[in-house]
């Protein structure tokens, strides 16, 4: 028998109480694991493919408002601009709108691949096929794997925004390329297809685009180019707001609310509640054992050793709950990542930083909840402890 055996036996002296406490901690860490991983995945997805020398021009009112396509050629003439393309949100889904939505942009194929060729990696043959096939679509590898799509296959892609003249919302598209990202970890849960194909067959919004992407000659020129672009379209029916690509990505994400703030608040609320419950329970559990602590000290266990054992119990409890919570959330995330719904969030998994932060949090939780009973055990005099009924 060693100190750890004693800690373990004491912790499980009332199994129901320990199980209930573990479940409470488990729930807090499940929430932490799920929400934090989701947030990390969304942040990573928003950063994927962003570049320091690219700018995004969108409607000043809101990026969901369209811009006239004529803006593209005017932006291209601005000094310092070395490349221009445009992209428009399609509201894409495959078969079932609720279960299989994903990122879908209709783009100008040639200029788009010129600007985003590093992030949308294709073979030369795929690139050629995409440029020459009006109904061609490039699908990300993770989407292709998820739905079992093959090169050359024609797939029905629907829009939750646009309607065709016949009332249908579905465009048949031929897979001409399956792209990978610049890095293996980059999200490839997206599709890209021809602007012309959609523009010619949609019932509204003709000759408009979502936003314009600019490549500048140097990141140092970004501010100046942004000012010139916005000045060019000032006082027009569609004024612009030009920002660098990372800022745009973050703003896009913020449409869903300040996720970082929401996640922090929810996690903080869960942990505060758990902190109160666990501390109170441990204090009362330790009070029940006052006499035993007195006996241990009488037998010769030093006060610091007793303190370590009491803290050990709190640490073991919080670590058990945390490992279970983080483990289960990692499994759920793994399952979600394989589902169509999960594909919308990019590459969902528990990042090592989330797991490590979770374990650090568990240690802090253990130390904080164990502090009061441990210090009272440390200070407890043998005489007082043994005389307590």
């Amino acid at each position, binding site marked *: *028998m060693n100190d750890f055996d004693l800690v373990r036996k004491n912790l499980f002296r009332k199994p129901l109480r320990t199980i209930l406490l573990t479940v409470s901690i488990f729930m807090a860490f499940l929430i932490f694991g799920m929400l934090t991983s989701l947030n990390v995945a969304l942040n990573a997805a928003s950063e994927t493919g962003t570049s320091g020398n690219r700018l995004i021009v969108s409607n000043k009112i809101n990026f969901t408002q369209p811009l006239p396509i004529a803006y593209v050629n005017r932006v291209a003439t601005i000094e310092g601009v070395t490349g221009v393309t445009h992209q428009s949100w399609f509201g894409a889904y495959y078969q079932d709108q609720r279960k299989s939505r994903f990122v879908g942009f209709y783009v100008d194929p040639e200029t788009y691949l010129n600007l985003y060729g590093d992030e949308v990696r294709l073979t030369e043959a795929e690139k050629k096929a995409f440029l020459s096939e009006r109904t061609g679509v490039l699908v990300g590898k993770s989407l292709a794997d998820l739905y079992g799509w093959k090169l050359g296959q024609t797939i029905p892609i629907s829009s939750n925004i646009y309607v065709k003249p016949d009332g249908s919302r579905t465009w048949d598209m031929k897979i001409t390329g399956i792209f990978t990202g610049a890095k293996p970890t980059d999200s490839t849960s997206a599709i890209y297809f021809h602007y012309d194909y959609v523009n010619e067959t949609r019932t509204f919004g003709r000759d408009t685009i979502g936003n314009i992407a600019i490549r500048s000659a140097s990141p140092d020129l970004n501010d100046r180019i942004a000012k010139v672009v916005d000045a060019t379209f000032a006082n027009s029916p569609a004024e612009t707001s030009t920002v660098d690509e990372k800022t745009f990505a973050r703003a896009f994400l913020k449409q869903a609310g300040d996720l970082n703030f929401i996640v922090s608040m929810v996690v903080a609320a869960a942990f505060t509640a758990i902190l109160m419950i666990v501390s109170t329970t441990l204090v009362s559990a330790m009070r029940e054992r006052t006499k035993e602590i007195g006996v241990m000290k009488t037998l*010769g266990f030093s006060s610091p050793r007793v303190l370590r054992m009491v803290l050990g119990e709190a640490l073991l409890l919080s670590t058990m709950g945390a490992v279970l919570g983080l483990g289960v959330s990692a499994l759920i995330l793994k399952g979600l990542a394989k589902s169509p719904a999960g594909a919308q969030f990019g590459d969902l998994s528990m990042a090592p930083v989330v797991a490590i932060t979770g374990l650090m949090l568990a240690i802090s939780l253990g130390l904080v909840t164990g502090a009061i009973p441990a210090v009272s055990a440390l200070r407890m005099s043998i005489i007082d402890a043994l005389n307590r009924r």
Partner: protein
Amino acid sequence: MSALIQLNNVTKNYRRGKEGIAIFDGLTMGIEEGDFVAIMGPSGSGKTTLLNLLGGTDRTDGGEIWFDGERIDGYSEGQLAAWRARSVGFIFQFYNLMPVLTAAQNVELPLMLTKLSPKKRRDNVETALKIVELSDRAKHKPKELSGGQQQRVAIARAIVSDPKLILADEPTGDLDRATANDILRTLQLLNKELGKTIVMVTHDPEAARFATRTLHLDKGRFVEAMA
């Protein structure tokens, strides 16, 4: 026999509210090695306080306490804990066993404070349980044992690290006569066969008869000593 414990001019006061109460005011006594001393006296006479001072679980306000040639009253908390672990075995009225541990694990507790190998620890636990005739109950938890058996486990715990001194606070106070006599015979055996020095606080004159001498304490002073 030489004095294992020597108290010289010990004073001990307690505060009750604003009032200070003197428990001992210059108490001097000696306990020889191999002695089996029963300490009797009315409630509040200072019996348990004396036992606490002898066991280093309470501190004097003045005077000296010597144990086996070492002066222990100036020891720090840590030094006292280490000294108790190697020199003193404790037996309580209500056994005070750990309910989550088996009899053998309870007996092993003091050995966690030693550097003995796991095998040596197991051997010592077996021997201690054999001495108190509880080998067959080694894997039982306290709630599965009778009061007498629990007290015998407590005795095994008190002797397992082979301390020179055993302090027993009303060891039979919670037991029926027959079981109490059993326990007292075991203590007598430890004293006679193993040479343990035993100091036992008791209210029970029957119990005191098992000791080699009895000290009567009243208002912090020994009033009578019987051989």
